[in-house]
């Protein structure tokens, strides 16, 4: 009932704001792979059907690393799109400070986003000085270990239930001529794996101390020394894996040539496309099976400030649509990501997604690195991890340099 009133209020507000003539709304995003494109077309269809406006698709090929500079330079250069995808977190911080993004507070308050968005930290990531500047659309978490049943069968070992069992089984995989841990040789993947190890080995409180409070002394201390020793072990497990892209590494797991991979929940799409079933062909372990927690990264929509009042009205309607239950279900089922609200029916989701939903419902969640750390710090960490995983750098060396980056983090 409360939601209904809220949406009525929002509808009234949107109607009051404009007589709603049709506007062409250009939306930029980097969702170009199969599942992603299907998901975004759900959103476009809903927007075209439910409002008077037209969705103009502005997909940018390449990953976020390619698309973000294009998006940001368009906003800075005075040629803003009507709406754009960005990862929620600190990527848009300075754009907000410069007054380049539209304030969505009126929609957010009318619809009661603070009550429906779960976890509420997603909304906090969109909020700057008490004003809301983005509409979160999905949650992606990075802390997953994907295991190939085939590989463990070949090695004659049971499929591990957590990271420690995986470490114990790794020599058997090696003897069977398999790569224990698939790892794409790119800084962000290695940094992702390291972040996951932090949570699994040192725990949530330690993670928070370093990544949120930026306590460099703690990062140089004994708790993190354990993390770095584990990372050095993991590096040995990944020695034979010389692929670059994450999906090629996932493919090693799918085809049973590697035992496992630490990768975000988007890897699930690859298993699905390959026709594999969770629980029978592969196993997913959130939080490496040790600490079942997930971070809440993902995507949000931001709306650059435009002069045209029609587009401004369309922006608010789109923001409201993104958070609406129908779009949340349709979009996230196609994308394989978790919805940003807990009050909708996701019963058709598969095993792994259900496990993610359960963890989310229990509230065992962390802010993502994108929220805690600035892109500058992230890039430095990725550089460090890229070097660490591809060389013989000692765990102690890596730790002291890691602590130095954390001490400089802002």
């Amino acid at each position: 009932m409360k939601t209904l009133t809220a949406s009525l209020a929002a509808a009234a507000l949107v109607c009051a704001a404009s007589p709603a003539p049709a506007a062409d709304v250009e939306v930029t995003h980097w969702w170009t792979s199969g599942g992603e494109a299907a998901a975004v077309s759900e959103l476009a269809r809903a927007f075209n059907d439910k409002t008077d406006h037209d969705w103009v698709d502005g997909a940018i090929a390449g990953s976020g690393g390619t698309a973000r500079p294009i998006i940001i330079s368009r906003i800075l250069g005075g040629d803003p799109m009507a709406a754009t995808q960005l990862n929620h977190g600190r990527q848009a911080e300075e754009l907000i400070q410069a007054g380049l993004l539209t304030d969505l507070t009126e929609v957010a308050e009318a619809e009661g986003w603070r009550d429906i968005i779960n976890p509420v930290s997603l909304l906090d990531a969109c909020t700057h000085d008490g004003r809301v500047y983005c509409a979160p659309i999905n949650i992606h978490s990075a802390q997953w270990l994907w295991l190939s049943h085939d590989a463990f069968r070949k090695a004659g070992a049971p499929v591990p239930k957590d990271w420690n069992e995986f470490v114990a089984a790794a020599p058997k995989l090696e003897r069977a001529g398999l790569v224990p841990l698939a790892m794409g040789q790119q800084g962000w993947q290695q940094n992702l794996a390291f972040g996951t190890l932090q949570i699994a080995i040192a725990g949530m409180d330690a993670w928070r101390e370093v990544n949120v409070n930026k306590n460099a002394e703690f990062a140089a201390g004994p708790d993190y020394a354990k993390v770095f020793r584990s990372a050095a072990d993991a590096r040995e497990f990944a020695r034979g894996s010389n692929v670059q892209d994450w999906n090629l590494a996932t493919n090693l797991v799918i085809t049973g040539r590697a035992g496992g991979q630490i990768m975000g929940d988007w890897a699930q799409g690859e298993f699905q496309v390959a026709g594999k079933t969770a629980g029978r062909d592969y196993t997913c372990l959130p939080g490496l099976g040790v600490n079942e927690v997930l971070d809440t990264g993902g995507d949000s929509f931001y709306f650059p400030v435009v002069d045209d009042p029609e587009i401004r009205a369309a922006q608010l309607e789109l923001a409201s649509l993104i958070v609406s239950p129908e779009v949340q279900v349709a979009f996230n089922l196609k994308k394989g990501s978790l919805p940003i609200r807990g009050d909708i029916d996701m019963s058709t989701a598969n095993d792994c997604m259900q496990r993610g939903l359960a963890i989310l419902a229990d509230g065992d969640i962390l802010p993502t690195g994108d929220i805690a750390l600035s892109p500058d710090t992230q890039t430095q960490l990725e550089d460090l991890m890229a070097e660490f995983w591809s060389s013989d750098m000692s765990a102690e060396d890596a730790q002291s340099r890691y602590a130095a980056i954390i001490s400089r983090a802002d």
Partner: protein
Amino acid sequence: MSSTRRPIRIWRNPSAKIASIPMILTALVVFVGGTGWTVLHSFTSSRLLPKLDFVGLAQYERLWSTRRWLISVENLAVFGVCSLILTLVAGFALAALLDRKIRGENAFRTIFLYPFAMSFVVTGLVWQWILNPDFGIQGIVRGWGWEVFSFDPLNNPDIVVFGLLIAGIWQGTGLVMVIMLAGLRGVDEDIWKSARVDGIGTVKTYLFIIVPMMRPVFVTALVIISSGIIKLYDLVVAQTNGGPGIASEVPAKYVIDYMFKAQNLGQGFAASTMMLVSVTIIVVPWAYLEFGGRKRG
């Protein structure tokens, strides 16, 4: 006397001068102005947006204590020296061979020049595949039965620069060869005749008579090769993307990554200013010797 002549000089040929105004403005505003703006902002703490919040040399201190930057500089130095020497030597050798009036010169010239028609991105990808240990050279040689053969530069941090070097030389040698060949064709036939009369061997004639005569051609080739080396970026992105780890990073990639990916303009500007400084240190004394000295002499 000169004071009476000067105004006339300025107004001589007015249409040519008016026509060059746009280029002069472009050079001043875009090149000089843009460079000045970049250098100025490298002393600030600009992140995503440029702002004049001065922090002194902090960006430079951070730059020179960053491993990735040091590795980038070292890679560029190794790549630059090797690529400069090898491209010049190979380009000249090929040109000299073609100059011996061999049959099918046109065909060979086309073959050698073809790689230059390809962009660095295509070159990088092609060589990434050729050097791939499973599908490329290593895989083929192993397929012939030499099981322990190992040639895997792109996955070995110690020699990955040479993997880049192979691709760079393959791409660039053809152009240098054509420039050299043009230079060789410009050498007077009589010089060859008199060298032969004096009984000087062919190789010796090339090294001690022809090469010194071709000084301007070498200078042109040198400028073209060096500018290619300094801006080395797309080849790396396509072939290794800086990997494995950060073993094949180069300065230009550091600049782009820190300006746009890390959203830290100040750091990127500091790095690009260092690139400018290093180019200036090499180019200015050389240009002075090459051009400044001659005018006086």
